[in-house]
């Protein structure tokens, strides 16, 4: 880390030392297989039960509605494939949005190849679905609505309760990918009529490789991981006890000061947004101005490309992220930025900075100092900027 300013908390977070501390005994001492008969494993079973209770409480669910997984991706895959399969006799239509994480989108595309029909709802310029669009998309054969709680790129938070109510009124299962929203937004699965929900530990200062799915009691689901009788016969595989303990501990820590942390993050985020837009011309904020995650700033700078921007920022000690194609190994820019209506060349030049627990005002000062110069440097190199300056009046 040496002096790097890490502003990519939406990508992943460092595991808190207290979380690692809580995990350690379950590697070397309390290592027994949680399914075994002997007493050596009692401690593990208790640790898993305790973590399950913590997860449940955090979203107002019941303990036996929580299933541990290997991460957010598995929770999304399982929820969507498992629910689609369990209700296929009723119908094979799924509704999702155009701005979901690939863990949801690619799972839906997989189902399309296997005889399911999927509606990808558009979003408005701020990244929110329109409730009328959802209403209109519902058919007799719709069994599942999967709409993310908050978007990982632009930070926009959906009106989840409105979606949940509509789904419930139409007797359709509602799954939400809450990987980014968890521990930033208030989540109440009962009040919001959420039937299934995905979370991931490494986004909330817990370890990588563990997550959880909530599934409301009574909702049917096909198994995704077949094998042993773990997780009440629903998710096979020897339990990742240290990981599960780490997830629990991370939630415990995050819950203790969620409101203050969010207020702090919101202030830092707002400094980033307001001052970057003020300092740099031809820049725009992506996502909703207020209905957005407390840690997320996403800004497009015209005429430049994101990966080049990231490397130069990295050279200047700032770690950020971009919706640029070049960072993903594909040639198209972020589907999210396109969905909110950005033209390709602007979508390529976006910068996502996500603050976190360790971010300070000094960090923000430094970033505000560095970014304008870097953007200017790349613009000087850009044939698009050259053309714009020459033909400026036409635009």
């Amino acid at each position, binding site marked *: 880390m040496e002096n790097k300013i890490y502003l990519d908390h939406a990508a992943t977070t460092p595991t808190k030392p207290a979380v690692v501390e809580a995990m350690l005994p379950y590697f070397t001492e309390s290592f027994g297989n949680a399914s075994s008969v002997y007493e050596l494993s009692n401690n593990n079973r208790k640790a898993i039960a305790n973590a399950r209770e913590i997860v449940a409480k955090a979203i107002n669910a019941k303990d036996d509605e929580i299933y541990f997984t290997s991460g957010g991706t598995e929770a999304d895959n399982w929820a969507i494939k498992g629910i689609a399969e369990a209700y296929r006799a009723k119908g094979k239509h799924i509704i999702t949005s155009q701005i979901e994480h690939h863990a949801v989108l*690619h799972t839906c595309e997989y189902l399309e190849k296997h005889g399911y029909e999927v509606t990808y709802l558009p979003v408005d310029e701020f990244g929110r679905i329109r409730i009328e669009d959802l209403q209109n998309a519902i058919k007799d054969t719709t069994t599942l609505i999967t709409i993310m709680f908050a978007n990982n790129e632009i930070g926009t938070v959906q009106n989840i309760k409105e979606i949940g109510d509509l789904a419930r009124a139409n007797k359709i299962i509602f799954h939400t990918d809450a990987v980014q929203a968890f521990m930033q937004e208030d989540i109440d699965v009962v009040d919001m009529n959420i039937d299934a929900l995905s979370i991931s530990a490494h986004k909330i200062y817990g370890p990588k490789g563990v997550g959880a799915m909530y599934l409301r009691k009574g909702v049917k689901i096909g198994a995704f991981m077949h094998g042993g009788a773990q997780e009440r016969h629903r998710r096979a595989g020897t339990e990742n006890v240290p990981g599960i303990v780490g997830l629990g501990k991370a939630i415990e820590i995050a819950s203790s000061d969620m409101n203050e942390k969010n207020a702090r993050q919101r202030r830092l985020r707002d400094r980033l947004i307001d001052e970057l837009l003020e300092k740099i011309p031809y820049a725009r904020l992506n996502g909703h101005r207020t209905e957005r995650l407390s840690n997320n700033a996403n800004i497009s700078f015209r*005429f*430049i*490309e*994101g*990966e*080049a921007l990231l*490397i*130069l920022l990295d*050279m200047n000690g700032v770690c950020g992220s971009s919706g*640029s*194609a*070049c960072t993903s*190994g*594909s*040639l*198209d*820019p972020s589907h999210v930025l396109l969905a909110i209506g950005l*033209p*390709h*060349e602007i979508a*390529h030049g976006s910068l996502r900075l996500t603050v976190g627990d360790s971010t300070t005002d000094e960090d923000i000062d430094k970033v505000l100092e560095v970014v304008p110069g870097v953007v200017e440097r790349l613009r*000087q*190199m*850009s*044939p*698009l*900027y*050259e053309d714009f300056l020459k033909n400026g009046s036409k635009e």
Partner: protein
Amino acid sequence: MYTEKVMDHFMNPRNMGEITQASGVGTVGNAKCGDIMRIFLEIKDGIIEDVKFKTFGCGAAVATSSMATELVKGKSIQEAMTITNKAVAEALDGLPPVKMHCSLLAEEALHAALYDYATKNNIVIDGLEAPKADIHEGEEVEDEE
């Protein structure tokens, strides 16, 4: 993920800029794919006396532009025509597989600038074709299955 040479050419690009009264200018790529490369040539007596570039694109795109201009500067048109995308990539000690298209782009930009020069001067350069509209077609990442 980049070699030191790539990083050096990205951080300290050679020949970045414009030539206002260029003998030939070529622009290739498109903003949709995230790379646009423009090469300016100043040619005298069949020799590339000066060359500049502007690039909208990733680190590899900038570095290949920089390296391509280095490789052709001072060369004859014929010599410049023999410089392939592979040569550019090799001169940079290699590129990640997903970035090989950037080196292709550099080759194409050079050819486009030479074509512009040839057209303006009504000459024919052996082996030189009109630039393609989009060099990215047919390229895609490995399929999931």
